[in-house]
């Protein structure tokens, strides 16, 4: 049971980070490797807001979401939009280049030194055969609330409906008069904001370092592929699943193998379902 708690925590953060990645993939049509650097920016900004400016961590998280969301929009407009006509491959390589540029700038601006958030949420609740800290409840709760908020946004708002339509069929959406550019900007903002929030969460339970983006992007990509690159809800589920698999596996095999386990699961799933776990369900839903 204890490992389920841990799996939910790591899976929640991974799900938040991966869903934005998947949203960009669906609406913009390419894999954005620079998405990992958004987590790093979020982690560092959150550290500065909490540690240097003394902001409450929840307020800091909200400000980080807005700041990183806006950063995502700016980068989309000045970096990705100019190369969008050149195709997905060009955008992919542009994202790789942008990731390196961001990595370098992060080290210039925030430094190469590893930082630790103040030790927050230090109360523990003990149950019969497991315990949970306030921090773990906060992370899972926030991730859950974000997911519900995202779902309501996508299903109950006009902009959300436009996003889903564009993700399903961009050309048809354009023909139907959906403002595709406004949709694009909204997706970049939401995806980047969620990445920033995930970065703050990673900083709270771990540390803040300039390598964060590189270490996370592989897991984000794995969650996106496992869930089905075209399925936002599938990616959410896949992120949680990967987190659970990694931490539950620690009950049987040494925890040093948890990343190996995650990728073995990914490979096995892809062997039997090459489009990912939930891709088929998503196609049915769109139809």
């Amino acid at each position, binding site marked *: 049971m204890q490992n389920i708690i841990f799996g939910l925590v790591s899976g929640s953060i991974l799900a938040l980070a991966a869903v934005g990645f998947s949203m960009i993939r669906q609406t913009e049509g390419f894999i954005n490797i620079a998405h990992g650097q958004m987590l790093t920016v979020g982690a560092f900004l959150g550290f500065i807001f909490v540690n240097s400016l003394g902001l409450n961590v929840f307020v800091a998280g909200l400000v980080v979401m807005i700041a990183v969301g806006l950063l995502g929009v700016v980068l989309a407009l000045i970096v990705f939009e100019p190369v969008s006509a050149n195709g997905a491959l060009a955008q992919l390589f542009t994202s790789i280049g942008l990731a390196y540029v961001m990595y370098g700038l992060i080290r210039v601006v925030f430094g190469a030194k590893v930082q*630790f958030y103040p030790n927050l949420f230090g109360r523990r609740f003990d149950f019969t055969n497991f315990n949970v800290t306030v921090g773990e409840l906060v992370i899972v709760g926030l991730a859950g609330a974000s997911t519900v908020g995202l779902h309501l946004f996508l299903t109950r708002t006009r902009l959300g409906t436009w996003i889903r339509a564009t993700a399903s069929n961009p050309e048809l959406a354009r023909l139907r008069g959906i403002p595709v550019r406004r949709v694009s900007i909204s997706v970049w903002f939401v995806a980047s904001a969620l990445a920033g929030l995930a970065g703050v969460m990673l900083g709270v339970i771990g540390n803040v370092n300039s390598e964060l983006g590189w270490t996370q992007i592989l897991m984000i990509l794995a969650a996106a592929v496992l869930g089905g690159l075209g399925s936002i809800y599938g990616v959410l589920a896949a992120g949680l699943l990967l987190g659970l698999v990694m931490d539950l596996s620690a009950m049987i095999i040494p925890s040093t193998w948890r990343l190996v386990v995650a990728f073995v699961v990914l490979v096995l799933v892809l062997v039997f379902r090459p489009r990912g776990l939930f891709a088929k369900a998503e196609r049915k839903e769109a139809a």
Partner: protein
Amino acid sequence: MRARLRRVVILMVIALLVAACGDGEGTDTTGAGGTSTTSGSVTTAGGGEEGPIKVGFMIGVTGDYAPYYPPSEAGALIAIEEINAAGGVLGREFELVIGDNLSTAEGAVQAFNKLVDVDSVVAIGGVESDGAVANLQSIKDRQIPTICPACGTDKLDEAGGDYIWRITGSDSDGGLIAAQFARDSGYTRVAMLVQNTEGAAGPALVFKAVFTEMIGGEVVVDVRFEPGQASYQAQVDEVFAAEPEAVYLAAGFESGGIILQEAARRGVETNWLFSPDLIVPEIAGLPGVDLSGGVARAAIAAYDTSSPAYESYAARYEEMTGDAPSSGLYDANQYDQYIILALAMAAAGTTDGPAVAAEIAGILNGPGTVVYTYADGLAAIEAGEDIDYHGASSGLDVNEFGNLASPVFGEQNIVNGAWTQVAEVALDESLR
């Protein structure tokens, strides 16, 4: 469209240049395996008879060992300044070439190859355990005199003495001392939490062997983990589920800090036995974690503060950094290594690897005129005398394997938010 694309490309190139030129924390290195020069000399090509003598400083500027970098650089620069102020070596200026090993074995291999093949250094210092082990054969094959100021790995216990020397205590002793602490504190049930790296696994191996086989204690759980993970909740939970009396933690500060904060968040209180890699300011000042009052104990080779070499070095170090030297940060060791290399080159009359290597044991062990500075050593050598260099970090006598013959250890506790030596520790030889 083309104009916009051009603007984007220009923007990215500018940003790349900014990133490449910026250093965030005052370091002047480039990325993985990258090198840069310091000490004010203009780099000339190769390591021939003209121009400055280039020596490598292969160290973790980034990564787990990054906290050691500023004091290490200070110690090294003090040595370079002292050498050059006394006229350099063989009439040539000594120049430090920095290679960032990223605090990983892979980064150390890249940095070593670049320092030797591209920068043509004639000797290397600053090496850490992972780098020493990863490059051990290359060091011997390429005949590059290499001094390890901070290598604790037990793999060097009997592997050096020809082209590699270690001027700090072995982890074999560090692990033994940790077991000694456990015994003296009356612990019979200890959990182990060990990072899967050379610098951490080495002392852990010794600790476990001594604690279980020589002392008769029980390791209730032995949890290994990889560095670089976002959290270690499962590992912390597994350790404390075994209800140990103390926890032996061997890790770098990046993962060690996460573990200690996680333990504090979970409200678990225990006694900690730390590996030397955790004796860094970042751990002493970790937010929300109180390790004072002897809750955390560690041991590291101590400095002989009564030595004239130490006193001279300490004054300059304090002037440069504002802090006193700290054996936990190996700064005086970093200083000593370059004095040793410079004296060995002066004694050999050449920068040729085998000739320099042949001189090192002699200038460290004597017999000869005892000297405490480069200038004194150089003067004695030029007068045709043998020398016995006593350094700022210790007397520096080495055995046939290039290890310190009689290292002195000090116990470190956290006092007022800083690691502080609280006592000298005599090794219980019966535990070997």
